[in-house]
């Protein structure tokens, strides 16, 4: 990496070079460029383009392909398809055959920090991002690097929670990555060359982007992070071919707009409410769905009395204009950092005996929600975590009944669950098997005491207003769950308990086997029907990434990232002695 400067070393080197070059530098009649050539050092390489275009046989990715989602051979979007099921139709991996998975190839990221990406596979090429915004195009069969681009990031990024990136979007012959310094970049997917590079937000104001973009039609959609800096959230749409911004919808209303009355005084101006995860799209109602995170400051709501719309909400938007159709707020006036930005599924299911087009969401606040996706009407909330104390339930309209004892205090003594990280968190995915109607949810069980402090809002510096005392983590009491939730009923079908919080994503298959990873460094496979652990492989690094499944020339592959980030991993659980450093493992079914 070239993010660190060593001025003393630079001075010594330049002085040495200058002494060698001094005579020619002093000569007035030097040919132009000669002296420069003697002292100039080439910049470090930051991109390795493909000599010949790669992956061309498959042709451009069409809107119809994106609408269909994964067909088994490919994995086209972060969520697997527009419904975010992260489900492969492949039937080759079964409880009987999963033992035949073996390592096909592996690839290093060369970076520290959490390796949270979901790879995308198309035309035999895998596009995967690493922490600190490296983008690799790899031969999906062999792992050979076809092209690579390392974004040169500034050294003063505003990151609350590590240098993560969760992947790309692909459309036409372009692949898109958003960056920690607030850019959205389009690359020629066949060569790696930059097609356009637009600034979405000024990172010095507290913004960053960690999520994979989403493509619908000719638009690329992205949100922003920045809720720990009071940076006002928004969702943007860009023209896929030109990079020109088409619309921006703020997640916090301005003065005079509906909803601003839910913020005391001018608190809306520093209200945060970031849109830091990837959305979903419903073609039937032509609706873009996006979720919104915590109001700022996180743990002190004194200056922002009110419900603080649209923090911690689900938004239904017109994809052409960004106009808000409806919203549903999960945690009004949040003071625990219970972001609404966790995985949403667009499911056609049954509620009270009647078919319903719904959105199902395991929320960071510990409840599993079912919302009518045509109207935003609340249908049901059920507890999916084992420990939930911040609320005493959810009323008939979906509003939580807050436990007053759980409010942050200057010197807190009350143990509050779930942790500020969840439950599940937007940094990793869940998955849904439409065959059994089971959703699979990895989560944290780690209660905390929430302390209240003072925050002063200045753009670009932290604006959090308190902190969680990591009570259970300090005492070694944290653990993790993988829960199978029946979307028809909200009931738990089975649970797997891990010794450490489960903080990696999931992919399911039509063969009845799901994949995930844990913080102990294992890739894991489970029987979707029973929860039996069927297979494991010691990857070594902490599991924080999103697995995918694909098939090439009749062979089935499973890709699982490995590599954690101590700062956040330890926040949820006991300190880990596993070093950071990303490594992608790809297994094939023999």
């Amino acid at each position, binding site marked *: 990496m070239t993010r660190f400067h060593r001025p003393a070393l630079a001075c010594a080197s330049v*002085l040495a070079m200058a002494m060698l070059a001094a005579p020619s530098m002093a000569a007035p009649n030097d040919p132009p460029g000669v002296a420069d050539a003697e002292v100039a050092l080439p910049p470090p390489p930051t991109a390795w383009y493909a000599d010949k275009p790669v992956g061309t046989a498959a042709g451009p990715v069409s809107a119809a392909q994106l609408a269909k989602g994964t067909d088994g051979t490919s994995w086209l979007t972060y969520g697997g398809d527009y419904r975010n099921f992260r489900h492969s139709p492949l039937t080759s991996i079964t409880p009987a055959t999963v033992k035949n998975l073996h390592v096909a190839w592996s690839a290093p990221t060369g970076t520290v920090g959490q390796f949270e990406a979901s790879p995308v596979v198309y035309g035999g090429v895998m596009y995967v991002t690493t922490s600190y915004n490296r983008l690799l195009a790899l031969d999906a069969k062999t792992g050979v690097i076809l092209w690579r681009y390392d974004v040169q990031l500034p*050294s003063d990024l505003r*990151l609350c929670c590590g240098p993560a990136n969760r992947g790309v979007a692909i459309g036409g012959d372009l692949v898109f990555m958003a960056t920690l310094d607030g850019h959205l970049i389009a690359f020629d997917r066949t060569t790696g060359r930059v097609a356009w590079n637009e600034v979405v937000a000024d990172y010095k104001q507290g913004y960053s982007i960690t999520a994979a973009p989403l493509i619908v039609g000719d638009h690329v959609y992205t949100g922003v992070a920045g809720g*720990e800096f009071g940076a006002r959230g928004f969702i943007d749409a860009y023209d896929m071919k030109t990079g020109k911004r088409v619309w921006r919808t703020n997640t916090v209303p301005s003065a005079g707009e509906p909803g601003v009355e839910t913020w005391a005084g001018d608190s809306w101006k520093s209200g945060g409410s970031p849109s830091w995860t990837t959305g979903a799209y419903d073609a039937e109602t032509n609706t873009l769905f996006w979720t919104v995170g915590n109001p700022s400051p996180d743990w002190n709501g004194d200056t922002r009395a009110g419900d603080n719309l649209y923090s911690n909400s689900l938004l239904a938007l017109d994809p052409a204009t960004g106009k808000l159709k409806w919203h549903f707020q999960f945690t009004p006036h949040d003071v625990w950092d219970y972001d609404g930005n966790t995985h949403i599924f667009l499911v056609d299911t049954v509620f009270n005996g009647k078919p319903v087009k719904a959105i199902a969401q395991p929320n960071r606040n510990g409840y599993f929600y079912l919302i009518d996706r045509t109207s935003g009407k609340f249908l049901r909330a059920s507890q999916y975590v084992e420990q939930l104390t911040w609320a005493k339930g959810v009323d008939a309209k979906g509003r939580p009944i807050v436990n007053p004892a759980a409010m942050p205090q200057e010197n807190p003594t009350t143990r509050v669950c779930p942790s500020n990280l969840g439950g599940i968190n937007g940094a990793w995915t869940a998955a849904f098997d439409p065959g059994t109607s089971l959703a699979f949810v990895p989560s944290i069980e780690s209660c905390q005491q929430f302390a209240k402090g003072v925050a002063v809002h200045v753009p670009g*510096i932290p604006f959090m207003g308190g902190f969680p005392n990591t009570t259970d983590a300090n005492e070694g009491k944290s653990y993790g769950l993988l829960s199978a939730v029946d979307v028809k009923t909200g009931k738990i079908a089975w649970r797997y308990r891990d010794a450490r919080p489960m903080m990696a994503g999931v992919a399911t298959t039509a063969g009845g086997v799901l994949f995930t990873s844990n913080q102990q460094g294992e890739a894991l496979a489970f029987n979707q029907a029973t929860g039996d652990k069927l297979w494991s492989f010691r990857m070594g690094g902490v599991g924080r990434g999103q697995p995918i499944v694909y098939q090439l020339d009749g062979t089935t592959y499973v890709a699982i990232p490995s590599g954690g980030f*101590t700062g956040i991993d*330890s926040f949820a659980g006991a*300190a880990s002695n596993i070093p950071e450093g990303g490594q992608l493992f790809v297994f094939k079914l023999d």
Partner: protein
Amino acid sequence: MAAVRFTLAVCAGTLAIAAAPAPPAPASPLSSYQSAADIARGKSLFAGTCGAYCHRPGTTAGPATDAPNLFDCDWRHGGSDVDIFHTITTGVAGTRMVAFGGALPDAEIWRIIAYLRSASQCPKPTTGNTP
């Protein structure tokens, strides 16, 4: 070439400074921020601005993080009052530590330092051979 010449000038300046007598260390105003109210304000500011995802609160052993413990008297970037003030105001490039200079008033930064000093528990010096 312009860039090289500029760098040479900077380096020459650095050498000249190195050869000159060391200037007196700037005085610490920390003694002016020792009231109970100052320390309480520093504690609240620390809780609301520096804790959470970054520095662990207090001296109790919490989970390891990339942000250092600020209560164990082990300072990575200099442990004098002025060193700590400098680190807070200029940040640490390449880490999550942003520059607070110009954002928080100097007086508020000194109150945070006063709180850190008041709540720190420095380990006793060890004797004999240690690894």
